[in-house]
């Protein structure tokens, strides 16, 4: 579904991504993990078009999107939720979702957009908060809104950037259930995560990054046992 080949990006002297190869299969939940500074967020920004790669290519559903602007990727079905939640604060929850529903697919009629918003409100449990201004939400609600807004663009593949960060364990559990519901509704998911219990609970497959490179991939158990991964997380002396 998504194919990444040799994707590279440097910021001045820092190599943030170096020859990344990646494959996302339809219907799966893929986790990208790695120590701080491994280049995970850079990868996500490259995939959603917020930064342009120096080399490599990104193919999505058979189309080359390497240099496509962010909105075009969204139109093709590549959705994105941010780590630092950035709701439109002067809009209600419903209006926030409506932006995604109206513009996520060009030419969506207003009626259809409202229907999509209803469905997403239902799926994400935000229906009771629909008329609340986004500036007044709690952190958990903010995170849900971030997810919901990306869903409102009707993505085929959803990119999630540490959406669990800052949540209490019980809240993270709720969020895990939500991501599972999203997958069940037919959306493929690629997510970045620090919390290993969340990765274990959600991921069908795990990709490990370090120093801008993919150093291992496979099931959670395979990756956890991989010597390079232990080295990356525990240090060389281990």
């Amino acid at each position, binding site marked *: 579904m998504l194919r990444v080949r040799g994707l590279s990006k440097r910021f001045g002297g820092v190599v943030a991504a170096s020859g990344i190869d990646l494959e996302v299969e339809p219907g799966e939940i893929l986790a990208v993990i790695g120590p701080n500074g491994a280049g995970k967020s850079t990868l996500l920004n490259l995939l959603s078009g917020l930064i342009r790669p120096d080399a490599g290519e990104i193919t999505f559903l058979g189309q080359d999107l390497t240099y496509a602007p962010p*909105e075009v990727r*969204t139109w093709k079905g590549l959705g994105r939720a941010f780590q630092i939640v*950035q709701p439109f*604060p*002067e809009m209600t929850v419903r*209006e926030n979702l409506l932006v995604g529903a109206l*513009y996520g697919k060009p030419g969506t009629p207003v009626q259809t957009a409202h229907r999509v918003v209803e469905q997403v409100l239902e799926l994400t449990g935000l229906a009771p908060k629909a008329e609340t201004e986004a500036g007044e939400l709690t952190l958990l609600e903010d995170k849900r809104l971030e997810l919901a*807004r*990306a869903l409102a663009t009707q993505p085929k593949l959803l990119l999630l950037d540490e959406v669990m960060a800052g949540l209490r364990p019980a809240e993270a559990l709720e969020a895990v259930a939500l991501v599972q519901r999203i997958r069940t509704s037919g959306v493929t998911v690629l997510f970045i995560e620090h919390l290993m219990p969340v990765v274990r609970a959600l991921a069908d497959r795990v990709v490990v990054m370090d120093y801008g490179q993919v150093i291992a991939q496979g099931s959670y158990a395979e990756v956890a046992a991989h010597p390079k991964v232990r080295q990356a997380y525990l240090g060389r002396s281990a």
Partner: protein
Amino acid sequence: MILVGGVLLLALLLPGLPLGEWRAFVLDTAQFAFLISGLALAWDLLARTGQLSLAHGAFFGLGAYSAALLAPGLGTLPALLLGGAVAALFSLLLGLSTLRLQGMYFAIATLAFSEVIRTLVLKAQFTGGSIGLPVQPAFAGAYPLGGYYLAVAVLAICAMVSLLLGRSRLHYAMAATRQGEAVARVLGVSVVRVKLLAFMISAFLAGLAGGVYAMKTLFLTPYDAFGLGRAVEALVIPIFGGLYTTAGPLLGGLIVVSLETWLRLRIGEGYLVVYGLILILTILFLPKGLMGLLARRKGGRHA
């Protein structure tokens, strides 16, 4: 909506009211107030995308000069429309070159643009340079109230566009662009297109108001038509009245211009001090402008 309709109806009926010896003065002030309100409404449309412009004095002036130069050959209405189009064209060029600038940097770039345009008009031959440019009255003076009703029409058009955009799907794209540009793009909003479209609509309306202004003052100089004061007015009025609304800039413009005129009559030179004081107090105590005050009175939402 009702408020906006009421103001427009009153504007239409005003010349028929028994105003006595003050009639000419009231109509003249009202006509000016309508044009400044229209300019403020136009400015607010662009502000809805998060772009705070100091170029609206220049768009107003471009419309004024274009309409003044074209009217003798083309007639009043085509000249006014072309005046708006010239302003829109310049806004497209300015918009394309300032796309990456935000907040203060955008404002400074638009200010520089204003200065460039003013200097060009000052140095050019066909504009009359620093000597100024005499202007034909609207419809070559065939109708005494022609200019007045044109000002009412401009205000009506600006208010209609403002209301319609506030209810269209574009409203969400503009608000999203203002409140988070990167997020808006990732949600599928063509931020570049939205910004440029808002810029062109906004400049067109400002230019339209400028054209009618030219036919009202009958004489243009670069100092008057491109003065920074007008650019500041275009921004102060929506802030005073209530940003991102239609009734806010509309009522704000009428109040601010009336106040300014009244103060100028009362205390002559010192009027700017009082004017400034009132604006400072408004910004301090009415952060959402007049519209915020009205909303609070209705007991609707806490400010």
